[in-house]
């Protein structure tokens, strides 16, 4: 059933939280697969379990039961340090709150994942500059996050997620803190990463307009997959990308 074309396979995934006496089931028997190079959006109202699902898929959290096969191997077989190495090499994260280090330049922020990698140090600078170039911020190398606009900050975060050349990028509400123009700009960069660089993208959002950049949408409701459908009128990158 496992297949080399799938980067993610999830079978009967359950995640429950013990809140004192009550047990909350955040994910209930979730099963799906994600192809390599696919652009998937996960939608749902708050409390639907979409963030929990992203955390499990992003190897930040364990499932209570069920199987998660990432890149052909069950994740339950990895040790804590191996999971950290996988997050470092194969996964890029883009968060709603950007999560850049304050008082640290754009260049240093983008390099942050490299200090935990085994990439030789003489490549770091070139890699960071290339990634920053890809999000159109070459003129902001030495700026600090506080000197940047929200859209620029999120582009720095995207550059950081690209630095280790990961297979898959998880974007958790990447436009949630942005105005619509910056949001569209960020989304077209993400879409380009998928279309031109072949990165698998998993996007969490509650906005249909954002989700429409993806090829496919999984709708979650109360921890269960409600619908899993192709996007009919997919948005294109085209004119929205402004340098």
């Amino acid at each position, binding site marked *: 059933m496992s297949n080399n074309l799938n980067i993610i396979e999830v079978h009967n995934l359950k995640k429950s939280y013990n809140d004192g006496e009550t047990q909350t089931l955040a994910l209930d028997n979730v099963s799906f697969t994600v192809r390599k190079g696919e652009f998937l959006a996960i939608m749902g109202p708050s409390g639907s379990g979409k963030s929990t699902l992203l955390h499990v898929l992003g190897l930040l*959290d364990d499932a209570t039961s069920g199987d998660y096969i990432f890149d052909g191997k069950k994740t339950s077989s990895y040790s*804590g340090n191996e999971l*950290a190495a996988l997050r470092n*090499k194969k996964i890029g994260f883009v968060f709603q709150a950007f*999560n850049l280090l*304050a008082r640290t330049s754009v260049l240093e922020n983008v390099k942050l994942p490299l*200090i*935990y990698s085994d990439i030789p140090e003489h490549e770091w600078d070139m890699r960071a500059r290339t990634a920053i170039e890809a999000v159109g911020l070459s003129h902001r190398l030495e700026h600090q996050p506080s000197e940047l606009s929200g859209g620029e900050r999120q582009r720095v975060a995207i550059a950081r997620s690209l630095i280790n050349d990961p297979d898959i990028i998880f974007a958790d509400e990447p436009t949630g803190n942005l105005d619509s123009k910056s949001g569209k700009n960020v989304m077209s960069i993400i879409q380009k990463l998928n279309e031109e660089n072949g990165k698998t993208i998993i996007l969490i959002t509650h906005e249909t307009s954002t989700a429409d950049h993806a090829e496919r949408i999984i709708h979650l409701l109360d921890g269960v997959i409600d619908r899993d459908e192709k996007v009919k009128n997919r948005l294109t990158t085209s004119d929205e990308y402004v340098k």
Partner: protein
Amino acid sequence: MLSNRHLFKTATTGLSTNRSRTFLTIFGIVIGITAIMLVVSLGAGAQALILGQVQGLGTNTIAIIPGREPTGPSDVSSLYSDSLKEKDLTALENKANVPWLKLIMPTVISADSASFGSNAYQVNIFGATEIIADIFDMHLDSGSFWDQDDVLSRNSVVVLGSKVAQHLFDTENPIGQKIKVKSVNLKVVGVLAPTGGGSLFNFDNMIILPYTTTQSYILGTKYFNRIIIQSVTDDKVAVTADDIDRTLRESHNITDPTKDDFTVQTQQDLANRLSTITTSLTWFLVAVASIALFVGGVGIMNIMLVAVTERTREIGLRKALGATNGDILKQFLLEAVMLTVIGGLVGIFLGTLLAFIIALGLSKGLGVNWQFVFPWSGAILGVTVSAVIGLVFGGYPARKASKKSPIEALRYE
């Protein structure tokens, strides 16, 4: 894998983001280490001063004290305070008994009032032989020392300490005058140069006269308070001390050494005893100063816990980007150790500076022969202890940081 260089860089960045807090946190450690350095340095200086003076007497010097050393509170050592007599002197002077003896000097010590005309002054009376001037390296301001004939003939001659001369005679010339002690008239033949306040042996308040005169006319006793002996060389001190023991036991008809009615004390014994006292005093003060260091350590722990909570988001981010628990642990541990070691180094510098200033003040201001001692043991102890404090008090917060779940950390607002 986080390289050491980047670990260091990360920790430095962590510390430099909140400079004033970092500075205040370090301050506690600085005070603790400064106090320890100061105590160790001053302790070493005091020890050098005391031992220097003891050794100034000559390390070949041996003292015989009447009575045995008290072994407990009920042991009355003063019971035998009259045990050293003229016949012991004769026995010890016999080369067959103590072959390596170079010189021997009996002494009697007392205190009384001395007067000249209407002036009176409380003085320490030191009865000895003429060789006292050599043994204690005495210098005369005026006159000359009495000699062996004065000792043998029990002549009423006296040498005055500088303060005694000043109080009794003021500006008058004391040489040739007669002072009165216990209605005995003593002719002043010499006045000593001042010895100064910093010396272990202060002769300024003393009058020095032949022990025979002191015994016969002033005290009316026949025993000695001390017998001072010097062996020919330093390496004969132990043999000579044993010879003295044997000779005196024979002279006193003692067979059981635990019943000795005298104590033989070498300069080495005295030096050892004094350095034991100064060393234990120093370490006692170090222990007191360590309390400040401990409080500083608790401050470090407190501030590191605050930092870990404040930086929950950063920890989560680093974990999401591939940092292992070990990487996070090392980062926070290094931050704590850097805080304490920087504090330690500053403390060593400040403590040394203060000790140097105090040494300078004592030697220049008070005329004490005080040497500044750089406390190597204190410095090494200071750095080690501060690093250990960083590890111990930083350990718990760092562990707490490393155990944070990345999602809890990222969710933290």
